[in-house]
């Protein structure tokens, strides 16, 4: 709780592909820890970040941990607000059906408005 006793709105902005760099994995680790703090949490996926939710990661060939199942576990942590930017999906030939969890597809403009409503934006 904040010093005023109010809940703050935290948004985690995921912009990077799931593998290639560690940002996606370590961002997810922050989200899981944050869930214990009873704040208002949401996640946004844009740019190559939308690939984090693309169904069917197969990581055996690159010898990395497939952490996609963790996204499906977010619901158990009461993290249910997942926003995916429509333009980023479209540019990559993806739709909501390609996502491994239920998401809200929002336009770039609407995502901007959502960001404006946040108290804290973590950008990874």
């Amino acid at each position: 709780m904040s010093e005023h006793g109010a809940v703050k709105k935290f948004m985690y902005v995921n912009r990077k592909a799931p593998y290639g760099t560690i940002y996606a994995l370590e961002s997810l680790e922050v989200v899981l820890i944050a869930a214990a703090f009873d704040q208002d949490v949401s996640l946004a996926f844009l740019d190559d970040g939308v690939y984090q939710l693309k169904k069917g990661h197969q990581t055996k060939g690159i010898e990395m941990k497939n952490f996609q199942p963790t996204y499906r576990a977010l619901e158990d942590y009461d993290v249910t607000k997942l926003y995916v930017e429509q333009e980023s999906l479209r540019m990559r030939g993806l739709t909501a059906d390609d996502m491994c969890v239920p998401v809200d597809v929002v336009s770039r403009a609407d995502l901007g408005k959502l960001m404006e409503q946040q108290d804290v934006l973590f950008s990874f």
Partner: protein
Amino acid sequence: MKFGILVNEGPYTHQASDSAYQFCKAALAGGHQIYRVFFYHDGVDNATRLTEPPNDDRHIVNRWSKLAQEHSLDLVVCVAAALRRGIKDEILAPGFRISGLGQLIETGIQAERLVVFGD
């Protein structure tokens, strides 16, 4: 204003740590407070006292230590990110401490603005 700072990149390769340092210095000079500086991802590499840049270059690690000493800054390094990268208590530069990600979330709660430095 009470600022929280997140540094997501290592020293020298990336300007994030330099920019965060300059931001902190300017904020403190302007009478603002820095609630905490949290180091995550490769940002944890800003905390090793084994760093030895050439003499004609800035010493990013020592610079943080000095700023921490002068202003009682709380420089916190994420434990999980640190252990992954071989950063341990025994090689920490003065002013840094290792702690959990909860300290980052708490920074977001307590600070009036959280400023992220990274890609």
